[in-house]
């Protein structure tokens, strides 16, 4: 298993390099101009100078290698210095945002907590809701509970979050006035009442995303439970006189969780990508919103870096899913 993980990690290096190149080339092909958002009064020759100063005059391979050097060498060195207090020294250029002129990694570090709180929490919540719903739906197949659960997950699955998000805002912010429609990231939790304010502003974005995640995972959970409930080993467990609760929650659930865990692991990077829209709807200035603004502003370094980080997450969680599979299923061996 250890060897397998190492081998897969090494194989991921060329994969990721190729991905970074493709992202870079795609962004270069895209007809975006970092100066397009500047006032129209700026004359063309000044615009050209601005472009030159951003490095756009260099040939494409120079720009790519420069980004690689900045991202793969300089930034990790910075992080090492920061963590261990080393002084490696040397003049290291960081990946800079064209819009704000601040290092992209710093921007990400600023935005990450919001995304993790809202999106991460909604994913965890989605799983916590989905697993029991899937289990009960499968165990009581075609019961009222199952019918309603299936209906709700169909709705949650098929209605996009930008619709449910706006719908919730209309109902709970505009009509009822219970929750704020804008997520205030500058809000500091210092005491009980400010904590309540934080909870209030998190309820809507978290529930929109949680509904979507729960809908998806509960479908997988239900299907997987149904697959296993009809297996011979379930009959064996019953014939042994095992309590029905243990038959379902130990024998069947343990087997059913194997594919569901894979789905959950593979879904983690998707959550970051999929949350872009929801973050925008609720004005949560997390990673998704950073990406949207960067795209609109033609801020290639930010888009390049963020997209690459998403790709990195996908590759990483693919590996995690595979390893988890081997851990959970004793029949799978990697060597």
């Amino acid at each position, binding site marked *: 298993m250890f060897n397998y993980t190492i081998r897969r990690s090494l194989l991921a290096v060329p994969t990721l390099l190729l991905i970074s190149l493709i992202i870079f080339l795609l962004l270069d092909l895209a007809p975006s101009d970092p100066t397009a958002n500047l006032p129209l009064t700026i004359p063309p020759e000044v615009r050209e100078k601005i472009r030159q100063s951003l490095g756009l005059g260099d040939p494409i391979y120079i720009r790519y290698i420069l980004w690689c050097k900045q991202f793969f060498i300089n930034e990790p060195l910075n992080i090492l210095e920061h963590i261990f207090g080393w002084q490696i020294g040397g003049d290291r250029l960081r990946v800079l945002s064209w819009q704000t002129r601040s290092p992209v990694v710093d921007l990400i570090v600023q935005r990450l907590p919001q995304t993790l709180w809202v999106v991460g929490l909604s994913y965890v919540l989605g799983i916590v809701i989905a697993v029991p719903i899937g289990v009960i739906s499968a165990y009581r197949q075609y019961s009222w509970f199952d019918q309603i659960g299936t209906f709700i997950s169909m709705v949650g699955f098929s209605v996009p979050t930008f619709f449910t998000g706006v719908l919730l805002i209309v109902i709970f912010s505009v009509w009822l006035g219970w929750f704020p429609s804008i997520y205030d990231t500058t809000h500091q939790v210092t005491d009980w009442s400010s904590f309540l304010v934080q909870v209030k502003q998190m309820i809507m974005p978290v529930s929109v995303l949680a509904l979507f995640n729960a809908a998806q995972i509960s479908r997988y959970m239900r299907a997987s439970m149904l697959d296993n409930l009809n*297996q*011979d*080993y379930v*009959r*064996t*467990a*019953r*014939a*042994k*006189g*095992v*309590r*029905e609760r243990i038959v379902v929650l130990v*024998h069947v659930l*343990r*087997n059913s969780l*194997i594919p569901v865990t894979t789905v959950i692991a593979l879904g983690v990077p998707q959550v970051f990508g999929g949350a872009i829209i929801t973050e925008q709807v609720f004005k949560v200035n997390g990673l998704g919103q950073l990406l949207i603004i960067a795209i609109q502003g033609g801020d290639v370094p930010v888009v390049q870096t963020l997209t690459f980080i998403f790709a990195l997450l996908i590759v990483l969680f693919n590996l995690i899913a595979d390893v988890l599979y081997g851990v*959970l*299923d*004793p*029949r799978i061996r990697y060597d």
Partner: protein
Amino acid sequence: MPDEGTAVLDVKDLTTVFQTRQGNVHAVNAVSFELQPGELLGVVGESGSGKSVTMMSLIGLLPSPPAKVAAGHVRFANSDLLKVSDEQLRSVRGAEIGFIFQDPMTSLNPVFTVGFQLMEPLRGHMGLTKAQARARAAELLDLVGISDAKRRLSDFPHQFSGGMRQRVMIAIALACDPKVLIADEPTTALDVTIQAQILELVKELRHKLGMSIVWITHDLGVIAGIADRVMVMYGGQVVEQAPVRELFANPQHPYTKALLETIPSVRGARPEKLQVIEGQPPILYDFPRSCSFSDRCAHAFESCRSQNPPAFAVGADHTVSCHWNAEAGAPRNG
């Protein structure tokens, strides 16, 4: 060694119905039989004749819905298994009545160790501690002929071969010293050599532990080798019951005869074609009002199509449900 005395298991008029969209399927129709202490009762019949369903319904192992045990009594240890609470029934299952299933490849849970699965009934029914259960589990594996039992407890089912897994299943069924062992085609999925080994093992264990066994199979050769008494089932009914020698020497029901004729002979000239029973067993959407074998029977006459034959005693401990008197070669009178 069927000794005289009260039966361990006494089944009367057991009737099981599957409620499906196409209507009610009558899978078991008023089946009655007794199981004597220490006896090995063979149950034979084609696929779909209701052998397994009969045995599963008396212990509540059929999924309900769609299955429903509609009528009958199952007397076991002074209680009626069809009337007791789910909890009581659960305390009988695996403790006093053990079960072995057909396919050892899928009957064990793939993600738990053999030790865990073997210790489950021991801890649940007998209240053993973990250490005691482990020691007993190792003993059981040893008993069913798995070497290096202690170490193999921590192996997973996929690390065992098919025959070995069936041995594990037998060990699980025997874990709590059951009075009755129900073996549902335990050798069907195994190849012939492994089958012989399992048969030897069961014969040996039966003498060692002195339990009663119900052996479901469609292999008459197996029955001839191990059973004391045989029950032939067709269309969810018992059509003939007799001691094993009597049944093979003197079959009375046309279906039993036909079954025996389908066994190819090893000696003599090889016949052109294998002997078969033409047609399919019926799917009964109603309680049988006529003989369910009449469509495939060479001797069928009017009574067979108008009246379901009751069980006639035709010899010592030998009953047959047939209007045709095979001895006389004529319809039975009354």
